[in-house]
């Protein structure tokens, strides 16, 4: 039996209890009041729901491109520093995307997808730790 999720009140409303269906002593049905921290409207389109993530990633792509161009064209010491920025952004962007989606899926109640994304980040983190240890 699946339990109703706190963050999906629109699609997964709790089944009214027998008492609330039949009413109390006065005959009036008791409404069930639950505290909802955040409401996500799942009826919105994908483009709107992922708009912030898409915008952020586009900005990061442009930053990486400009930094890489600067690294390609500018002399030392600005060039290598810009290249390092570009490499950092290129590394961070996909990990940021996975982390973003993991949080989003967790909040939406897609726990399995969130777990897979978190596991992916754990693998990357474990690789980083191993690299640090064996440096």
């Amino acid at each position, binding site marked *: 039996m699946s339990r109703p999720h706190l963050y999906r009140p629109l699609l997964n409303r709790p089944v009214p209890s027998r008492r609330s269906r039949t009413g109390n002593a006065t005959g009036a049905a008791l409404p069930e009041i639950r505290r909802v921290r955040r409401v996500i409207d799942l009826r919105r389109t994908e483009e709107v729901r992922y708009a912030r993530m898409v915008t952020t990633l586009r900005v990061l792509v442009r930053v990486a491109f400009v930094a890489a161009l600067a690294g*390609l064209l500018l002399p030392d010491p600005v060039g290598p520093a*810009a290249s390092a920025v570009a*490499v950092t952004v290129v590394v961070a962007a996909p990990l940021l995307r996975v982390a973003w989606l993991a949080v989003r899926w967790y909040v939406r109640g897609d726990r399995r997808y969130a777990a897979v994304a978190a596991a992916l980040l754990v693998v990357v983190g474990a690789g980083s730790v*191993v690299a640090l240890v064996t440096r």
Partner: protein
Amino acid sequence: MKVPVKVAASTTTFTVGITSAAALIVFAIHGRINLDHAAPVIVGSLVGGRLGARLQARFAPNVVRAALGAVLVVVAGVLFARS
């Protein structure tokens, strides 16, 4: 596997991005990244990625599959010649 070629290409790109990021972290920690070479590689990758995405949306799956196969054959030939 009956996976649409556009879905396969997108999934491959995502997978390669994650694994490359993980590998790049290890290389960076070990100080084995040549920043002089990194800049042109990043510029080429970003330009090629955007160009490829636009072309992929414009052409039919068969054309995309043939082009992808041709590119992979060329890459394999280059790697074989270098080795």
